[in-house]
């Protein structure tokens, strides 16, 4: 619990040292299946960042003004997941109305986000670490950016691996996981700069 971390420190920490994917293992399922092509990786990264920021703000407000005052803490999983599902639904409809072009590029990725563990994970981290509103916004936005960065990097590496002589049994998810391991090591290199827990 460190409620007094400066927002800028928190932003950098959530992008690099405490990367939601590489340090906390969240959002792996869609990460491994989508990371084959850079264009979809980009779309999914954008969608995750947007949804993550919006839902964390909503969940923070609900936590502060509804869940805690009414002593409903044991129901928080259900409340968080409903907020996430509803936000994704509404966002889908709004984007479809406002910008059909964005909808086409983002649309197919939005439903996938409801089951992305990173979104629920950030909401739960925000609650356990007792972040205030500004910290929550910065932390969720930074986590989204960090996830986006990781999936873009991985899809770029995957493109190279396609042409590399990988042993047949290691092809596919095996080599992807080992690559993620190396990326995680590289990101640990940032950890001397700052850390949050």
């Amino acid at each position, binding site marked *: 619990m460190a409620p007094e971390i400066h927002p800028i420190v928190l932003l950098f920490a959530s992008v690099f040292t405490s990367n939601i994917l*590489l*340090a*906390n*293992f*969240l*959002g*792996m*399922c869609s990460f*491994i*299946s989508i990371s084959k092509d850079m264009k979809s990786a980009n779309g999914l990264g954008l969608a995750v960042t947007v949804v993550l920021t919006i839902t964390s703000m909503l969940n923070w407000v609900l936590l502060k003004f509804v869940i805690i005052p009414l002593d409903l803490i*044991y*129901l*928080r*999983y*259900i409340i968080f*997941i409903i907020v996430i*599902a509803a936000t994704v639904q509404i966002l889908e409809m709004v984007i479809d109305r406002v910008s059909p072009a964005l909808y086409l590029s983002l649309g197919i990725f939005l439903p996938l986000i*409801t*089951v*992305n*563990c990173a979104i*629920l*994970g950030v909401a*739960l*981290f925000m*609650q*356990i670490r007792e972040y205030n509103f500004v910290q929550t916004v910065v932390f969720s936005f930074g986590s989204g950016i960090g996830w986006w960065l990781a999936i873009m990097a991985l899809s770029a590496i995957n493109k190279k691996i396609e042409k590399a002589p990988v*042993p*047949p*049994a*290691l*092809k*596919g*998810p*095996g*080599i*992807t*996981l*080992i690559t*993620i*391991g*190396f990326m*995680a*090591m590289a990101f*640990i290199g940032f950890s001397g700069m700052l850390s949050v827990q």
Partner: protein
Amino acid sequence: MNGDSPSQILKENVWTNNPIFIQILGICSTLAVTNNLTNTLIMTLGVMFVAAFTNITVSLLKQVIPRKVRMIVQTLIIAFYVIIVDILLRAYLPEISKSLGPYVGLIITNCIIMGRAEAFAQSHGPIISAWDGLTSGLGYMWVLMLIAFVRELLGFGTVFGYAVLPETFTPWTIMVMAPSAFFLLGSVLWFAKAIILKKERGK
């Protein structure tokens, strides 16, 4: 899916169609706790419990739930059982509950549970569905326990918290940190696939 006998399901879920190394599902929340055998055991038992009961519930309610909203209903059923696991852990194992942190709640988004509910419980009876959930959890458990065993042994020199390696052993710090989980899971996938490929060639 060929054959629905209990032993067939056991074999499929634990080996030939293992949720982790064949389907690559649900590794998110549980990889995070694999640097410690006790935590992994509790976490995977939780997954087994939730998977089995979710399958029973989905199987019983499959006629009642409208197809259009079944995903959200399934998610709520899963969340219900995860809350039970969370409350039980907090009451009886407060220490472990604390060190697992948010990861117990993240069982909700574990794709294995939703996947089995969709693929199996929607079209089968409650008892066999419970067995399917249980064995999927088992297939999940043994792989993660293997990873946790290596990480805890080399990272801390202990097994279930008991020191087994001599004091002269230098712990491998990397095993405690995140990258080793990725490396080990990658290697497990490699070995499993190598065995499967070899079998296919032998046929």
